[in-house]
């Protein structure tokens, strides 16, 4: 206890140095908090966009559908199914269940004028689709699908490429279930600009009632059953729960995270980068701590010598220096958290325009516009503890050096 008091006073006595050295730690802490928040914020928006516009919380399909659709160039329309009542009631019983909709997905070439472009067609039931997905809220021209007309809704980027407007004519060419080329023709009824850039280019929406007979599949057939839950946190557990109840069914369920494996690996890469940077910051911080301990020990040589002459054990002196280093860590960690909190406050209220940094949509990350950094108190706690621990560990060697110095030499120095 009295060691603690002594350490605190020494830290305070050289407050100039304490502040200077701890400013290294302050930088490390504030940077980490900012990066972490930036990343979590970006991932959060990305996942939200995936959920709202591409894959909702849970996606149900035939076994192998997911692997096959990823592997092959053409979506496997053969792997369709007709949802049974059992399945539907099972899904409705899921915790946090909100809505579900069936989707029939297939590949086609979108043709207009002299151009053609490969797209993913989502044949949907507009009523239930709008309960699960948000696309219809982002219509910028025309209307979203209604009734069972032959029209399509396309994304704004696709419309730009084709110079298409609402009411203009298009053809979609695809291979039907019998293996021969078939087409859907009609007018563009709506153009949508979602925050998910990919959807704006590659996805075309059409009424399922209209599309099913042209592909040659059963009226009720779908390739995926999309389920929306109340909360993202429930997705994994409910998807697993559903897997269990599906049992012998030839179906499988997956959560949005499994569907968005690109984002998951991006997230991992982001964390790797953040922690690598943190490690470098802490390395410099550790050198700072070592320097602080050595400077302090040199300066207090006589004092330490006297303590040893009085019979104070080396382990106590070791502990004294470690406590002082811990003190610098606490100061640096606390100030860093404070500054980090100020940064996050602004980041959280005013957001950060990702577009000035780079166009993430170009590499396929579903982010555009402003992102807002979330408050993540775990990150504050984590970095604070890490900084204090690193400070203490870094001090061990120089503290040992200080504690083992010969007291006679020290005392004799004038």
């Amino acid at each position, binding site marked *: 206890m*009295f060691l603690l008091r*002594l350490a605190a*006073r*020494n830290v305070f*006595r050289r407050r100039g140095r304490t502040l200077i050295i701890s400013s290294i730690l302050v930088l490390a802490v504030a940077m980490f908090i900012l990066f972490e928040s930036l990343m979590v914020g970006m991932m959060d928006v990305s996942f939200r966009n995936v959920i709202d516009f591409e894959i909702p919380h849970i996606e149900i399909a035939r076994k192998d559908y997911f692997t096959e659709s990823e592997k092959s160039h053409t979506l496997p329309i053969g792997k369709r199914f007709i949802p049974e009542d059992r399945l539907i009631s099972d899904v409705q019983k899921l915790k946090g269940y909100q809505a579900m909709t069936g989707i029939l997905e297939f590949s086609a070439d979108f043709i207009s004028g002299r151009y053609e472009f490969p797209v993913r067609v989502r044949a949907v039931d507009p009523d239930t689709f709008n309960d699960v997905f948000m696309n219809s809220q982002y219509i910028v021209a025309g209307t979203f699908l209604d009734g069972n007309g032959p029209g399509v809704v396309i994304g704004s980027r696709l419309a730009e490429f084709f110079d298409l407007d609402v009411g203009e004519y298009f053809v979609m060419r695809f291979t039907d279930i019998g293996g021969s080329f078939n087409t859907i023709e009609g007018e563009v009824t709506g153009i949508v600009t979602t925050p998910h850039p990919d959807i704006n280019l590659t996805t075309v929406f059409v009424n399922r009632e209209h599309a099913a007979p042209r592909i040659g599949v059963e009226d009720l057939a779908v390739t995926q059953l999309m389920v929306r839950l109340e909360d993202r946190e429930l997705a994994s557990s409910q998807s697993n729960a559903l897997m269990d109840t599906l049992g012998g069914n030839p179906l499988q369920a997956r959560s949005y995270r499994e569907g968005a494996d690109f984002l998951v690996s991006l997230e991992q890469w982001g964390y790797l980068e953040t922690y690598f940077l943190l490690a470098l910051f802490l390395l410099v911080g550790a050198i700072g701590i070592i320097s602080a301990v050595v400077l302090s020990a040199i300066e207090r040589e*006589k*004092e330490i*010598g*006297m*303590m*040893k*002459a*009085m*019979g*104070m*054990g*080396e382990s*106590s002196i070791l502990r004294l220096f470690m406590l002082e280093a811990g003190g610098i860590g606490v100061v640096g960690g606390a100030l860093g958290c404070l500054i980090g909190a100020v940064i996050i406050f602004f980041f959280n209220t005013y957001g950060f325009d990702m577009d000035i940094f780079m166009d993430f949509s170009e590499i396929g990350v579903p982010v555009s516009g402003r992102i807002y950094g979330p408050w993540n108190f775990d990150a504050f706690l984590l970095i604070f503890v890490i900084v204090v621990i690193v400070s203490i560990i870094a001090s061990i060697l120089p503290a040992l050096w200080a504690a083992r110095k010969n*007291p*006679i030499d020290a*005392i*004799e120095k*004038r």
Partner: protein
Amino acid sequence: MSLLTLEHVDKTYGQGDLQVHALNGVDLTISKGEFTTVFGPSGSGKTTLLNLIGALDRPTSGSVVFLDKPIGSMNRHEQAAHRRFHVGFIFQSYNLIPVLTAYENVEFALKITGIRDSKKIHSQVTDMLDHVGLSELMHRRPNQLSGGQKQRVAVARALVKHPKLVLADEPTANLDSKTSKEVIEVMLRMNRELHTTFIFSTHDPMVMEYARRMVEIRDGNISQDTER
């Protein structure tokens, strides 16, 4: 009754051509309750001798025995423990801990002996500061005290744990003659009242006058040993 015995003690510093024989075959016996001075010219070996007696250092050869314990051959940790309980030190340059008050500096010596009873600590520390005449100034930090006051704090710190032996290496060298007198008189009073054994080195004749036994040392040898 003897407190401390040195037999054929040699101390050599350095190696090869640069060797310095600081002490050559010193024999010395110190009894309980002595008030003894070690004097001699600068470089004669006074500090070296006191360091060996105080278990701050080990002799190159010969034995140093403190109440049947061979302190000359202890390891660092045993020596530290020995000093903690049995020896008090006073140095020329006070060596107080700058971030602690006078009271806390004295208290520090007690705390490292492992005493936890705060009442006992408090009474012992205030007693001791009273003895050295510093009750009024006990909450000042070292940089708010004069040299004589600082040295009196150092005396109190050395004595507060009631050690069997107090070693003072030129305790008055940094002080003017009036303050030197005050400090040495405090030491003498302590010796009388608490029966603590004192050994101090000096080359100030006025300070030597207070000693009851005078050991003269020259070139690492005891050249004269007189009692009065």
